[in-house]
Protein backbone atom coordinates (compact mmCIF):
# COMPACT_ATOMS: atom_id res chain seq x y z
CA UNK A 1 0.00 0.00 0.00
CA UNK A 2 1.68 3.19 -1.07
CA UNK A 3 1.52 6.71 0.32
CA UNK A 4 -0.77 7.90 -2.44
CA UNK A 5 -3.57 5.54 -1.43
CA UNK A 6 -2.96 6.23 2.24
CA UNK A 7 -3.43 9.88 1.52
CA UNK A 8 -6.60 9.18 -0.46
CA UNK A 9 -7.91 7.04 2.37
CA UNK A 10 -7.38 9.75 4.94
CA UNK A 11 -8.88 12.41 2.73
CA UNK A 12 -11.84 10.17 2.00
CA UNK A 13 -12.54 10.02 5.73
CA UNK A 14 -12.34 13.79 5.84
CA UNK A 15 -14.68 14.09 2.84
CA UNK A 16 -11.98 15.89 0.92
CA UNK A 17 -11.90 13.79 -2.27
CA UNK A 18 -13.17 14.87 -5.66
CA UNK A 19 -15.03 12.45 -7.95
CA UNK A 20 -11.93 11.32 -9.85
CA UNK A 21 -9.99 10.60 -6.66
CA UNK A 22 -12.96 8.82 -5.14
CA UNK A 23 -13.24 6.56 -8.18
CA UNK A 24 -9.52 5.90 -8.06
CA UNK A 25 -9.67 4.92 -4.41
CA UNK A 26 -12.67 2.63 -4.76
CA UNK A 27 -11.18 0.90 -7.78
CA UNK A 28 -8.10 0.19 -5.70
CA UNK A 29 -10.17 -0.89 -2.70
CA UNK A 30 -11.92 -3.54 -4.77
CA UNK A 31 -8.60 -5.26 -5.46
CA UNK A 32 -6.52 -4.52 -2.34
CA UNK A 33 -7.51 -6.51 0.73
CA UNK A 34 -5.04 -4.72 3.03
CA UNK A 35 -6.33 -1.32 2.00
CA UNK A 36 -9.91 -2.52 2.58
CA UNK A 37 -8.98 -3.64 6.07
CA UNK A 38 -7.35 -0.31 6.75
CA UNK A 39 -10.40 1.50 5.46
CA UNK A 40 -12.73 -0.52 7.70
CA UNK A 41 -10.55 0.11 10.74
CA UNK A 42 -10.35 3.84 10.06
CA UNK A 43 -14.10 4.07 9.53
CA UNK A 44 -14.69 2.17 12.77
CA UNK A 45 -12.34 4.53 14.59
CA UNK A 46 -14.13 7.55 13.17
CA UNK A 47 -17.46 6.11 14.32
CA UNK A 48 -16.09 5.44 17.79
CA UNK A 49 -14.77 8.99 18.04
CA UNK A 50 -18.19 10.31 17.08
CA UNK A 51 -19.80 8.18 19.77
CA UNK A 52 -17.79 9.78 22.56
CA UNK A 53 -20.28 11.88 24.55
CA UNK A 54 -19.85 15.64 24.35
CA UNK A 55 -18.40 17.20 27.49
CA UNK A 56 -20.91 18.97 29.73
CA UNK A 57 -19.99 22.49 30.84
CA UNK A 58 -20.08 22.98 34.60
CA UNK A 59 -23.27 24.74 35.66
CA UNK A 60 -22.51 28.23 36.83
CA UNK A 61 -24.91 29.66 39.37
CA UNK A 62 -24.54 33.27 38.26
CA UNK A 63 -25.68 33.31 34.68
CA UNK A 64 -27.01 30.19 33.04
CA UNK A 65 -28.24 30.13 29.54
CA UNK A 66 -29.38 27.20 27.51
CA UNK A 67 -27.37 26.29 24.48
CA UNK A 68 -28.97 26.76 21.13
CA UNK A 69 -28.53 23.35 19.56
CA UNK A 70 -29.07 24.62 16.02
CA UNK A 71 -25.96 26.73 16.34
CA UNK A 72 -23.71 24.11 17.87
CA UNK A 73 -24.32 20.89 16.02
CA UNK A 74 -25.00 17.86 18.15
CA UNK A 75 -25.15 18.98 21.72
CA UNK A 76 -26.19 16.18 23.90
CA UNK A 77 -27.26 16.51 27.53
CA UNK A 78 -28.45 20.11 27.05
CA UNK A 79 -25.10 21.76 27.49
CA UNK A 80 -25.01 24.87 29.61
CA UNK A 81 -22.40 27.52 29.90
CA UNK A 82 -22.30 31.00 31.34
CA UNK A 83 -21.38 34.29 29.79
CA UNK A 84 -21.03 36.04 33.11
CA UNK A 85 -17.65 37.61 32.61
CA UNK A 86 -18.77 39.45 29.52
CA UNK A 87 -22.47 39.94 30.24
CA UNK A 88 -22.62 40.53 33.96
CA UNK A 89 -20.28 43.48 33.84
CA UNK A 90 -22.76 45.24 31.56
CA UNK A 91 -25.82 44.02 33.44
CA UNK A 92 -24.29 45.08 36.73
CA UNK A 93 -24.04 48.60 35.38
CA UNK A 94 -27.43 48.59 33.71
CA UNK A 95 -29.57 47.39 36.62
CA UNK A 96 -28.82 50.25 39.09
CA UNK A 97 -29.10 52.80 36.29
CA UNK A 98 -32.50 51.43 35.32
CA UNK A 99 -33.67 51.38 38.94
CA UNK A 100 -32.55 55.01 39.45
CA UNK A 101 -34.31 56.03 36.25
CA UNK A 102 -37.58 54.40 37.34
CA UNK A 103 -37.35 56.07 40.76
CA UNK A 104 -36.73 59.46 39.15
CA UNK A 105 -39.74 59.02 36.85
CA UNK A 106 -41.91 58.05 39.80
CA UNK A 107 -40.82 61.04 41.89
CA UNK A 108 -41.30 63.42 38.96
CA UNK A 109 -44.84 62.08 38.46
CA UNK A 110 -45.63 62.49 42.12
CA UNK A 111 -44.27 66.05 42.10
CA UNK A 112 -46.39 66.91 39.06
CA UNK A 113 -49.51 65.56 40.80
CA UNK A 114 -48.76 67.67 43.86
CA UNK A 115 -48.47 70.80 41.72
CA UNK A 116 -51.63 70.17 39.71
CA UNK A 117 -53.84 69.10 42.60
CA UNK A 118 -52.38 70.70 45.68
CA UNK A 119 -55.30 69.95 48.02
CA UNK A 120 -57.30 67.17 46.46
CA UNK A 121 -54.66 64.65 46.00
CA UNK A 122 -53.46 64.65 49.56
CA UNK A 123 -54.68 62.16 51.99
CA UNK A 124 -54.20 63.12 55.54
CA UNK A 125 -53.77 60.43 58.01
CA UNK A 126 -54.55 61.23 61.56
CA UNK A 127 -53.22 58.81 63.97
CA UNK A 128 -55.08 58.72 67.21
CA UNK A 129 -53.29 56.88 69.83
CA UNK A 130 -55.22 56.23 72.92
CA UNK A 131 -52.91 55.94 75.80
CA UNK A 132 -54.06 54.13 78.88
CA UNK A 133 -53.74 56.09 82.07
CA UNK A 134 -50.39 55.51 83.51
CA UNK A 135 -49.78 55.74 87.18
CA UNK A 136 -46.21 56.36 87.91
CA UNK A 137 -45.24 55.22 91.24
CA UNK A 138 -42.12 56.55 92.52
CA UNK A 139 -40.05 54.12 94.42
CA UNK A 140 -38.51 57.01 96.24
CA UNK A 141 -41.72 58.04 97.99
CA UNK A 142 -41.48 59.81 101.19
Amino acid at each position, binding site marked *: MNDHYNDLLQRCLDEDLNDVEMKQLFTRLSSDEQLRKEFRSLTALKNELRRIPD*PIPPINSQTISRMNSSDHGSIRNGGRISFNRLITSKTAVRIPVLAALLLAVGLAGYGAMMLMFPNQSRTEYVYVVEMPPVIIQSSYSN
Partner: protein
Amino acid sequence: MMQPTPMTDQQLAQNVIAGDPRAVTLFYERYRYGLFRFCSRLLSDPVMAEDVVHDTFVILMTKKDQLRDPSVLRSWIFTIARNECITLLRKNKKFKAIAEHEEESVFEGPSERTESDERSKIAEKLLNALLPQYKEVILLKEYEGMSYEEIAAVTETTVSSVKSRLFKARRSMMKLMEPYTKGIL
Protein backbone atom coordinates in the same frame (compact mmCIF):
# COMPACT_ATOMS: atom_id res chain seq x y z
CA MET B 1 -44.41 35.65 8.61
CA MET B 2 -40.91 35.62 7.22
CA GLN B 3 -38.14 34.49 9.50
CA PRO B 4 -35.12 36.82 9.63
CA THR B 5 -32.13 35.34 7.78
CA PRO B 6 -29.45 34.25 10.24
CA MET B 7 -26.21 36.17 9.95
CA THR B 8 -23.44 34.33 8.12
CA ASP B 9 -20.15 33.80 9.91
CA GLN B 10 -18.55 36.40 7.68
CA GLN B 11 -21.20 39.05 8.44
CA LEU B 12 -21.09 38.20 12.10
CA ALA B 13 -17.31 38.49 12.18
CA GLN B 14 -17.48 41.87 10.41
CA ASN B 15 -19.97 43.15 12.98
CA VAL B 16 -17.86 41.80 15.84
CA ILE B 17 -14.81 43.62 14.52
CA ALA B 18 -16.93 46.76 14.07
CA GLY B 19 -17.75 46.53 17.77
CA ASP B 20 -21.49 45.71 17.58
CA PRO B 21 -22.32 44.35 21.08
CA ARG B 22 -25.22 42.26 19.76
CA ALA B 23 -22.90 40.62 17.24
CA VAL B 24 -20.45 39.85 20.04
CA THR B 25 -23.20 38.13 22.03
CA LEU B 26 -24.38 36.23 18.97
CA PHE B 27 -20.81 35.26 18.12
CA TYR B 28 -20.33 33.99 21.65
CA GLU B 29 -23.60 32.04 21.49
CA ARG B 30 -22.55 30.47 18.21
CA TYR B 31 -19.03 29.44 19.12
CA ARG B 32 -18.86 29.04 22.88
CA TYR B 33 -19.83 25.39 22.93
CA GLY B 34 -17.47 24.38 20.15
CA LEU B 35 -14.67 26.20 21.95
CA PHE B 36 -15.65 24.64 25.24
CA ARG B 37 -15.78 21.16 23.69
CA PHE B 38 -12.35 21.64 22.12
CA CYS B 39 -10.76 23.05 25.30
CA SER B 40 -12.45 20.54 27.57
CA ARG B 41 -11.13 17.61 25.58
CA LEU B 42 -7.70 19.13 25.12
CA LEU B 43 -7.36 19.89 28.82
CA SER B 44 -9.43 16.93 30.04
CA ASP B 45 -10.93 19.38 32.51
CA PRO B 46 -14.32 21.07 31.92
CA VAL B 47 -13.86 23.66 34.68
CA MET B 48 -10.54 24.84 33.33
CA ALA B 49 -12.01 24.72 29.84
CA GLU B 50 -14.82 27.07 30.82
CA ASP B 51 -12.27 29.53 32.15
CA VAL B 52 -10.33 29.31 28.91
CA VAL B 53 -13.51 30.00 26.91
CA HIS B 54 -14.17 33.14 28.97
CA ASP B 55 -10.57 34.27 28.68
CA THR B 56 -10.63 33.65 24.95
CA PHE B 57 -13.61 35.95 24.47
CA VAL B 58 -12.08 38.58 26.73
CA ILE B 59 -8.89 38.46 24.62
CA LEU B 60 -11.02 38.61 21.48
CA MET B 61 -12.74 41.75 22.73
CA THR B 62 -9.47 43.45 23.61
CA LYS B 63 -7.59 42.45 20.47
CA LYS B 64 -10.32 42.40 17.83
CA ASP B 65 -9.00 45.60 16.26
CA GLN B 66 -5.85 43.71 15.28
CA LEU B 67 -7.85 41.35 13.07
CA ARG B 68 -8.04 42.55 9.48
CA ASP B 69 -9.68 39.58 7.76
CA PRO B 70 -13.13 38.61 9.17
CA SER B 71 -13.05 35.26 7.39
CA VAL B 72 -10.38 33.98 9.79
CA LEU B 73 -12.15 35.03 12.99
CA ARG B 74 -13.26 31.49 13.81
CA SER B 75 -9.79 30.02 13.44
CA TRP B 76 -8.39 33.04 15.29
CA ILE B 77 -10.49 32.40 18.41
CA PHE B 78 -9.59 28.71 18.30
CA THR B 79 -5.93 29.71 18.06
CA ILE B 80 -6.33 31.94 21.13
CA ALA B 81 -8.09 29.14 23.01
CA ARG B 82 -5.49 26.58 21.96
CA ASN B 83 -2.63 28.79 23.10
CA GLU B 84 -4.39 29.38 26.42
CA CYS B 85 -4.81 25.62 26.83
CA ILE B 86 -1.17 24.95 26.02
CA THR B 87 -0.09 27.60 28.54
CA LEU B 88 -2.25 25.96 31.19
CA LEU B 89 -0.98 22.50 30.36
CA ARG B 90 2.61 23.68 30.52
CA LYS B 91 1.99 25.57 33.75
CA ASN B 92 0.31 22.68 35.47
CA LYS B 93 2.43 20.05 33.77
CA LYS B 94 -0.87 18.30 33.59
CA PHE B 95 -0.62 16.80 30.18
CA LYS B 96 2.21 14.48 31.07
CA ALA B 97 0.36 13.26 34.13
CA ILE B 98 -2.82 12.66 32.14
CA ALA B 99 -0.98 10.89 29.36
CA GLU B 100 0.83 8.57 31.76
CA HIS B 101 -2.35 7.85 33.66
CA GLU B 102 -4.38 7.21 30.55
CA GLU B 103 -1.74 5.02 28.98
CA GLU B 104 -1.69 2.85 32.08
CA SER B 105 -5.42 2.41 32.09
CA VAL B 106 -5.65 1.92 28.35
CA PHE B 107 -3.31 -1.03 28.38
CA GLU B 108 -5.33 -3.03 30.84
CA GLY B 109 -6.40 -5.31 28.01
CA PRO B 110 -9.69 -5.88 26.27
CA SER B 111 -11.23 -8.25 28.87
CA GLU B 112 -14.99 -8.49 28.29
CA ARG B 113 -15.61 -4.86 27.45
CA THR B 114 -17.07 -5.16 24.00
CA GLU B 115 -20.28 -3.21 24.59
CA SER B 116 -20.61 -0.02 22.57
CA ASP B 117 -20.55 2.26 25.65
CA GLU B 118 -17.39 0.61 26.82
CA ARG B 119 -15.87 1.04 23.38
CA SER B 120 -16.61 4.75 23.34
CA LYS B 121 -15.05 5.05 26.81
CA ILE B 122 -11.98 3.29 25.49
CA ALA B 123 -11.93 5.57 22.46
CA GLU B 124 -12.05 8.54 24.81
CA LYS B 125 -9.16 7.18 26.83
CA LEU B 126 -7.18 6.56 23.68
CA LEU B 127 -7.91 10.09 22.53
CA ASN B 128 -6.69 11.46 25.85
CA ALA B 129 -3.57 9.34 25.61
CA LEU B 130 -2.52 10.99 22.35
CA LEU B 131 0.22 13.58 22.26
CA PRO B 132 -1.31 17.09 22.31
CA GLN B 133 -0.21 17.88 18.76
CA TYR B 134 -2.06 14.77 17.53
CA LYS B 135 -5.00 15.21 19.82
CA GLU B 136 -5.71 18.78 18.76
CA VAL B 137 -5.85 17.94 15.05
CA ILE B 138 -8.25 15.08 15.72
CA LEU B 139 -10.45 17.33 17.87
CA LEU B 140 -10.53 20.12 15.31
CA LYS B 141 -11.24 17.74 12.43
CA GLU B 142 -13.66 15.27 13.97
CA TYR B 143 -15.61 17.50 16.33
CA GLU B 144 -15.30 21.02 14.95
CA GLY B 145 -15.40 19.96 11.30
CA MET B 146 -12.58 22.27 10.30
CA SER B 147 -10.82 22.11 6.94
CA TYR B 148 -7.11 21.26 6.74
CA GLU B 149 -6.40 24.95 6.08
CA GLU B 150 -8.33 26.07 9.16
CA ILE B 151 -6.59 23.48 11.34
CA ALA B 152 -3.24 24.63 9.97
CA ALA B 153 -4.14 28.21 10.91
CA VAL B 154 -5.25 27.23 14.43
CA THR B 155 -2.25 25.02 15.13
CA GLU B 156 0.11 27.47 13.42
CA THR B 157 1.51 24.85 11.10
CA THR B 158 1.23 23.79 7.44
CA VAL B 159 -1.53 21.85 5.69
CA SER B 160 0.82 18.96 4.93
CA SER B 161 1.81 18.83 8.59
CA VAL B 162 -1.86 18.73 9.57
CA LYS B 163 -2.47 15.82 7.19
CA SER B 164 0.57 14.01 8.49
CA ARG B 165 -0.48 14.51 12.12
CA LEU B 166 -4.01 13.33 11.39
CA PHE B 167 -2.62 10.25 9.68
CA LYS B 168 -0.29 9.46 12.58
CA ALA B 169 -2.94 10.15 15.20
CA ARG B 170 -5.46 7.86 13.52
CA ARG B 171 -2.91 5.17 12.87
CA SER B 172 -1.80 5.30 16.50
CA MET B 173 -5.37 5.15 17.82
CA MET B 174 -6.29 2.41 15.41
CA LYS B 175 -3.39 0.30 16.58
CA LEU B 176 -4.31 0.78 20.23
CA MET B 177 -7.95 0.11 19.48
CA GLU B 178 -7.29 -3.14 17.63
CA PRO B 179 -7.68 -5.50 20.62
CA TYR B 180 -11.06 -3.99 21.42
CA THR B 181 -12.45 -4.11 17.91
CA LYS B 182 -11.40 -7.67 17.15
CA GLY B 183 -14.42 -9.63 16.06
CA ILE B 184 -16.40 -6.48 15.42
CA LEU B 185 -14.83 -5.64 12.11
